Protein backbone atom coordinates (compact mmCIF):
# COMPACT_ATOMS: atom_id res chain seq x y z
CA UNK A 1 0.00 0.00 0.00
CA UNK A 2 2.81 2.42 0.93
CA UNK A 3 4.69 1.54 -2.25
CA UNK A 4 1.58 2.20 -4.32
CA UNK A 5 0.95 5.57 -2.65
CA UNK A 6 4.53 6.77 -3.17
CA UNK A 7 4.76 5.54 -6.76
CA UNK A 8 1.33 6.93 -7.61
CA UNK A 9 2.07 10.35 -6.12
CA UNK A 10 5.40 10.53 -7.95
CA UNK A 11 3.76 9.44 -11.21
CA UNK A 12 1.12 12.18 -10.91
CA UNK A 13 3.84 14.73 -10.04
CA UNK A 14 5.80 13.73 -13.15
CA UNK A 15 2.62 13.99 -15.23
CA UNK A 16 1.97 17.52 -13.95
CA UNK A 17 5.54 18.50 -14.86
CA UNK A 18 4.98 16.97 -18.30
CA UNK A 19 1.91 19.05 -19.07
CA UNK A 20 3.01 22.34 -17.47
CA UNK A 21 6.78 22.62 -18.02
CA UNK A 22 7.77 25.58 -20.21
CA UNK A 23 10.86 23.77 -21.47
CA UNK A 24 10.19 20.79 -23.76
CA UNK A 25 13.18 18.84 -22.43
CA UNK A 26 11.87 19.24 -18.87
CA UNK A 27 8.48 17.98 -20.04
CA UNK A 28 10.10 14.92 -21.62
CA UNK A 29 12.13 14.21 -18.50
CA UNK A 30 8.96 14.53 -16.41
CA UNK A 31 7.35 11.90 -18.63
CA UNK A 32 10.40 9.62 -18.22
CA UNK A 33 9.94 9.95 -14.45
CA UNK A 34 6.23 9.10 -14.76
CA UNK A 35 6.97 6.09 -16.96
CA UNK A 36 9.52 4.71 -14.49
CA UNK A 37 6.98 5.08 -11.68
CA UNK A 38 4.34 3.35 -13.83
CA UNK A 39 6.83 0.51 -14.24
CA UNK A 40 6.99 0.30 -10.44
CA UNK A 41 3.19 0.27 -10.29
CA UNK A 42 3.16 -2.63 -12.77
CA UNK A 43 5.52 -4.45 -10.42
CA UNK A 44 3.11 -3.93 -7.50
CA UNK A 45 0.36 -5.40 -9.72
CA UNK A 46 2.47 -8.58 -10.09
CA UNK A 47 3.20 -7.87 -13.74
CA UNK A 48 6.98 -8.20 -13.57
CA UNK A 49 7.46 -8.83 -17.30
CA UNK A 50 5.49 -5.71 -18.21
CA UNK A 51 7.42 -3.67 -15.64
CA UNK A 52 10.69 -4.67 -17.31
CA UNK A 53 9.25 -4.03 -20.78
CA UNK A 54 8.01 -0.62 -19.67
CA UNK A 55 11.49 0.40 -18.55
CA UNK A 56 13.21 -0.98 -21.64
CA UNK A 57 10.76 0.06 -24.36
CA UNK A 58 9.12 3.21 -22.97
CA UNK A 59 11.67 4.82 -20.69
CA UNK A 60 14.55 3.55 -22.81
CA UNK A 61 13.71 3.54 -26.50
CA UNK A 62 10.67 5.78 -26.94
CA UNK A 63 11.82 8.58 -24.67
CA UNK A 64 15.30 8.65 -26.22
CA UNK A 65 13.61 9.11 -29.57
CA UNK A 66 11.49 11.92 -28.13
CA UNK A 67 14.45 13.73 -26.59
CA UNK A 68 16.39 13.30 -29.81
CA UNK A 69 13.62 14.90 -31.87
CA UNK A 70 13.05 17.70 -29.33
CA UNK A 71 16.72 18.61 -29.50
CA UNK A 72 16.84 18.14 -33.27
CA UNK A 73 13.90 20.49 -33.80
CA UNK A 74 15.15 22.96 -31.23
CA UNK A 75 11.63 23.02 -29.75
CA UNK A 76 12.89 23.99 -26.32
CA UNK A 77 11.78 27.61 -26.48
CA UNK A 78 8.30 28.35 -25.13
CA UNK A 79 5.75 29.48 -27.67
CA UNK A 80 4.71 33.01 -26.83
CA UNK A 81 2.31 33.72 -29.69
CA UNK A 82 -1.30 34.47 -28.87
CA UNK A 83 -3.82 31.65 -28.56
CA UNK A 84 -6.07 31.62 -31.64
CA UNK A 85 -8.90 29.99 -29.69
CA UNK A 86 -10.12 32.03 -26.72
CA UNK A 87 -10.07 30.43 -23.26
CA UNK A 88 -8.68 27.13 -24.63
CA UNK A 89 -6.54 26.67 -21.50
CA UNK A 90 -9.41 27.21 -19.08
CA UNK A 91 -11.78 25.02 -21.08
CA UNK A 92 -9.14 22.26 -21.25
CA UNK A 93 -8.55 22.29 -17.49
CA UNK A 94 -12.29 22.37 -16.80
CA UNK A 95 -13.05 19.57 -19.27
CA UNK A 96 -10.12 17.50 -18.00
CA UNK A 97 -11.25 17.91 -14.39
CA UNK A 98 -14.79 16.89 -15.28
CA UNK A 99 -13.44 13.80 -17.09
CA UNK A 100 -11.24 12.89 -14.11
CA UNK A 101 -14.25 13.26 -11.79
CA UNK A 102 -16.46 11.14 -14.02
CA UNK A 103 -13.85 8.39 -14.37
CA UNK A 104 -13.28 8.47 -10.60
CA UNK A 105 -17.00 7.92 -9.95
CA UNK A 106 -16.86 4.87 -12.24
CA UNK A 107 -13.66 3.67 -10.51
CA UNK A 108 -15.10 4.06 -7.01
CA UNK A 109 -18.19 2.07 -8.01
CA UNK A 110 -16.07 -0.82 -9.31
CA UNK A 111 -16.16 -3.99 -7.25
CA UNK A 112 -13.78 -6.88 -7.69
CA UNK A 113 -15.44 -9.99 -9.08
CA UNK A 114 -13.16 -12.39 -7.20
CA UNK A 115 -10.69 -12.05 -4.30
CA UNK A 116 -7.37 -10.51 -5.32
CA UNK A 117 -5.49 -13.58 -4.13
CA UNK A 118 -7.30 -15.72 -6.70
CA UNK A 119 -6.70 -13.07 -9.32
CA UNK A 120 -2.94 -13.09 -8.73
CA UNK A 121 -2.93 -16.89 -8.83
CA UNK A 122 -4.66 -16.69 -12.23
CA UNK A 123 -1.73 -14.61 -13.54
CA UNK A 124 0.46 -17.72 -13.43
CA UNK A 125 -1.36 -18.94 -16.53
CA UNK A 126 -3.47 -22.01 -17.10
CA UNK A 127 -2.69 -25.67 -17.54
CA UNK A 128 -2.24 -26.43 -21.24
CA UNK A 129 -0.46 -28.90 -23.49
CA UNK A 130 2.72 -26.94 -22.84
CA UNK A 131 2.46 -26.46 -19.09
CA UNK A 132 1.69 -28.88 -16.30
CA UNK A 133 0.29 -28.04 -12.89
CA UNK A 134 3.59 -28.45 -10.95
CA UNK A 135 5.31 -26.14 -13.43
CA UNK A 136 2.61 -23.54 -12.89
CA UNK A 137 3.12 -23.66 -9.14
CA UNK A 138 6.77 -22.66 -9.57
CA UNK A 139 6.00 -19.85 -12.01
CA UNK A 140 5.84 -16.26 -10.78
CA UNK A 141 2.53 -14.47 -11.57
CA UNK A 142 2.81 -12.23 -14.62
CA UNK A 143 6.31 -13.45 -15.41
CA UNK A 144 7.79 -13.58 -18.90
CA UNK A 145 6.97 -17.30 -19.08
CA UNK A 146 3.31 -16.72 -18.26
CA UNK A 147 2.79 -13.76 -20.61
CA UNK A 148 4.92 -15.35 -23.32
CA UNK A 149 2.92 -18.56 -23.32
CA UNK A 150 -0.39 -16.72 -23.77
CA UNK A 151 1.15 -14.41 -26.38
CA UNK A 152 2.53 -17.25 -28.50
CA UNK A 153 -0.44 -19.63 -28.26
CA UNK A 154 -3.76 -17.81 -27.85
CA UNK A 155 -2.69 -14.48 -29.34
CA UNK A 156 -0.18 -15.61 -31.94
CA UNK A 157 -2.08 -13.93 -34.78
CA UNK A 158 -2.14 -10.45 -33.17
CA UNK A 159 1.50 -10.99 -32.27
CA UNK A 160 2.44 -11.61 -35.90
CA UNK A 161 0.23 -8.75 -37.06
CA UNK A 162 2.11 -6.44 -34.69
CA UNK A 163 5.42 -7.62 -36.10
CA UNK A 164 4.24 -6.71 -39.60
CA UNK A 165 3.05 -3.35 -38.25
CA UNK A 166 6.50 -2.69 -36.80
CA UNK A 167 8.09 -3.53 -40.14
CA UNK A 168 5.73 -1.12 -41.91
CA UNK A 169 6.49 1.53 -39.27
CA UNK A 170 10.24 1.17 -39.86
CA UNK A 171 9.85 1.46 -43.63
CA UNK A 172 7.43 4.38 -43.23
CA UNK A 173 9.69 6.28 -40.86
CA UNK A 174 12.70 5.86 -43.14
CA UNK A 175 10.67 6.92 -46.20
CA UNK A 176 9.24 9.98 -44.46
CA UNK A 177 12.57 11.24 -43.20
CA UNK A 178 14.72 10.51 -46.24
CA UNK A 179 14.83 13.01 -49.08
CA UNK A 180 13.82 12.18 -52.68
CA UNK A 181 16.78 10.57 -54.45
CA UNK A 182 16.79 12.80 -57.54
CA UNK A 183 17.11 16.06 -55.58
CA UNK A 184 19.46 15.07 -52.77
CA UNK A 185 22.30 17.28 -53.95
CA UNK A 186 20.53 20.64 -54.39
CA UNK A 187 17.95 20.13 -51.66
CA UNK A 188 20.46 19.11 -49.01
CA UNK A 189 22.64 22.12 -49.71
CA UNK A 190 19.61 24.41 -49.67
CA UNK A 191 18.18 23.16 -46.37
CA UNK A 192 21.58 23.18 -44.74
CA UNK A 193 21.96 26.82 -45.69
CA UNK A 194 18.56 27.80 -44.31
CA UNK A 195 18.65 25.74 -41.17
CA UNK A 196 21.92 24.44 -39.77
CA UNK A 197 20.38 22.92 -36.61
CA UNK A 198 18.96 19.57 -37.79
CA UNK A 199 22.35 18.42 -38.94
CA UNK A 200 22.14 14.81 -37.79
CA UNK A 201 19.70 13.52 -40.39
CA UNK A 202 21.02 15.37 -43.47
CA UNK A 203 24.53 14.28 -42.51
CA UNK A 204 23.49 10.67 -42.57
CA UNK A 205 21.97 11.17 -46.03
CA UNK A 206 25.03 12.90 -47.44
CA UNK A 207 27.26 10.30 -45.85
CA UNK A 208 25.43 7.56 -47.71
CA UNK A 209 25.60 9.46 -51.00
CA UNK A 210 29.32 10.01 -50.48
CA UNK A 211 29.76 6.26 -50.06
CA UNK A 212 27.74 5.62 -53.23
CA UNK A 213 29.84 8.10 -55.19
CA UNK A 214 33.05 6.47 -54.04
CA UNK A 215 31.78 3.09 -55.13
CA UNK A 216 30.95 4.50 -58.55
CA UNK A 217 34.47 5.89 -58.87
CA UNK A 218 36.04 2.56 -57.92
Amino acid sequence: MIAFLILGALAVAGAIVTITAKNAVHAALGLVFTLLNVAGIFATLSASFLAATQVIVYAGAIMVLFLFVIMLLNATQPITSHDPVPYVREVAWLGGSVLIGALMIIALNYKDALPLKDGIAGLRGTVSQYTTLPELAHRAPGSAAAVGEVLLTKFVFPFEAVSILLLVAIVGAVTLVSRPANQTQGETAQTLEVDPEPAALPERGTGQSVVVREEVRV
Partner: protein
Amino acid sequence: MVPTTSYLVLSAVLFGLGLIGAMTRRTAVLIFLSVELMLNAANIALVAFARAWGDLTAQTAVFIVMTLAAAEVAIGLAIIVSIFRKRETTNVDDLATLKG
Protein backbone atom coordinates in the same frame (compact mmCIF):
# COMPACT_ATOMS: atom_id res chain seq x y z
CA MET B 1 -3.16 -5.62 -0.85
CA VAL B 2 -4.15 -2.47 -2.74
CA PRO B 3 -7.66 -2.74 -4.17
CA THR B 4 -8.25 -2.37 -7.90
CA THR B 5 -10.20 0.85 -7.28
CA SER B 6 -7.03 2.71 -6.18
CA TYR B 7 -5.30 1.79 -9.41
CA LEU B 8 -8.33 2.88 -11.42
CA VAL B 9 -8.34 6.26 -9.64
CA LEU B 10 -4.64 6.74 -10.44
CA SER B 11 -5.31 5.74 -14.04
CA ALA B 12 -8.19 8.27 -14.25
CA VAL B 13 -5.99 11.08 -12.90
CA LEU B 14 -3.14 10.33 -15.31
CA PHE B 15 -5.55 10.03 -18.25
CA GLY B 16 -7.18 13.37 -17.42
CA LEU B 17 -3.80 15.09 -17.05
CA GLY B 18 -2.75 13.65 -20.42
CA LEU B 19 -5.94 14.95 -22.02
CA ILE B 20 -5.39 18.42 -20.52
CA GLY B 21 -1.83 18.39 -21.84
CA ALA B 22 -2.94 17.33 -25.31
CA MET B 23 -5.47 20.19 -25.39
CA THR B 24 -3.29 22.96 -23.98
CA ARG B 25 0.04 22.25 -25.66
CA ARG B 26 0.85 24.02 -28.93
CA THR B 27 3.90 22.09 -30.13
CA ALA B 28 3.30 18.81 -31.97
CA VAL B 29 6.02 16.97 -30.04
CA LEU B 30 4.54 17.95 -26.67
CA ILE B 31 1.06 16.88 -27.78
CA PHE B 32 2.64 13.52 -28.56
CA LEU B 33 4.10 13.37 -25.05
CA SER B 34 0.64 13.92 -23.59
CA VAL B 35 -0.81 11.16 -25.77
CA GLU B 36 1.88 8.81 -24.41
CA LEU B 37 0.73 9.75 -20.91
CA MET B 38 -2.86 8.79 -21.81
CA LEU B 39 -1.70 5.47 -23.27
CA ASN B 40 0.11 4.71 -20.02
CA ALA B 41 -2.95 5.55 -17.95
CA ALA B 42 -4.94 3.06 -20.02
CA ASN B 43 -2.18 0.49 -19.53
CA ILE B 44 -2.39 0.86 -15.74
CA ALA B 45 -6.14 0.21 -15.87
CA LEU B 46 -5.60 -2.86 -18.08
CA VAL B 47 -2.97 -4.37 -15.78
CA ALA B 48 -5.17 -3.67 -12.75
CA PHE B 49 -8.07 -5.50 -14.44
CA ALA B 50 -5.73 -8.37 -15.36
CA ARG B 51 -5.03 -8.86 -11.65
CA ALA B 52 -8.67 -8.40 -10.67
CA TRP B 53 -9.87 -11.11 -13.09
CA GLY B 54 -6.83 -13.35 -12.94
CA ASP B 55 -6.55 -13.31 -16.71
CA LEU B 56 -3.35 -12.78 -18.67
CA THR B 57 -5.23 -11.48 -21.74
CA ALA B 58 -5.09 -7.89 -20.48
CA GLN B 59 -1.33 -8.12 -19.87
CA THR B 60 -0.92 -9.37 -23.43
CA ALA B 61 -3.00 -6.41 -24.62
CA VAL B 62 -0.71 -4.05 -22.70
CA PHE B 63 2.30 -5.63 -24.37
CA ILE B 64 0.73 -5.04 -27.79
CA VAL B 65 -0.22 -1.46 -26.84
CA MET B 66 3.42 -0.79 -25.96
CA THR B 67 4.53 -2.09 -29.35
CA LEU B 68 1.90 0.05 -31.05
CA ALA B 69 3.09 3.07 -29.09
CA ALA B 70 6.63 2.46 -30.31
CA ALA B 71 5.46 2.23 -33.93
CA GLU B 72 3.25 5.29 -33.51
CA VAL B 73 6.09 7.34 -32.07
CA ALA B 74 8.46 6.33 -34.87
CA ILE B 75 5.97 7.33 -37.58
CA GLY B 76 4.67 10.41 -35.76
CA LEU B 77 8.09 11.85 -35.05
CA ALA B 78 9.16 11.17 -38.64
CA ILE B 79 6.12 13.13 -39.84
CA ILE B 80 6.93 15.96 -37.42
CA VAL B 81 10.55 16.07 -38.62
CA SER B 82 9.52 16.20 -42.27
CA ILE B 83 6.93 18.93 -41.53
CA PHE B 84 9.59 20.90 -39.67
CA ARG B 85 11.91 20.69 -42.66
CA LYS B 86 9.25 22.10 -44.93
CA ARG B 87 7.63 24.70 -42.67
CA GLU B 88 10.32 25.52 -40.07
CA THR B 89 7.74 25.13 -37.31
CA THR B 90 5.91 22.42 -35.37
CA ASN B 91 3.35 24.74 -33.81
CA VAL B 92 0.03 23.06 -34.58
CA ASP B 93 -1.75 26.43 -34.95
CA ASP B 94 0.44 27.16 -37.97
CA LEU B 95 -0.22 23.71 -39.44
CA ALA B 96 -3.98 24.05 -39.73
CA THR B 97 -4.10 23.59 -43.50
CA LEU B 98 -3.75 20.33 -45.37
CA LYS B 99 -2.01 22.02 -48.32
CA GLY B 100 1.67 21.02 -48.42
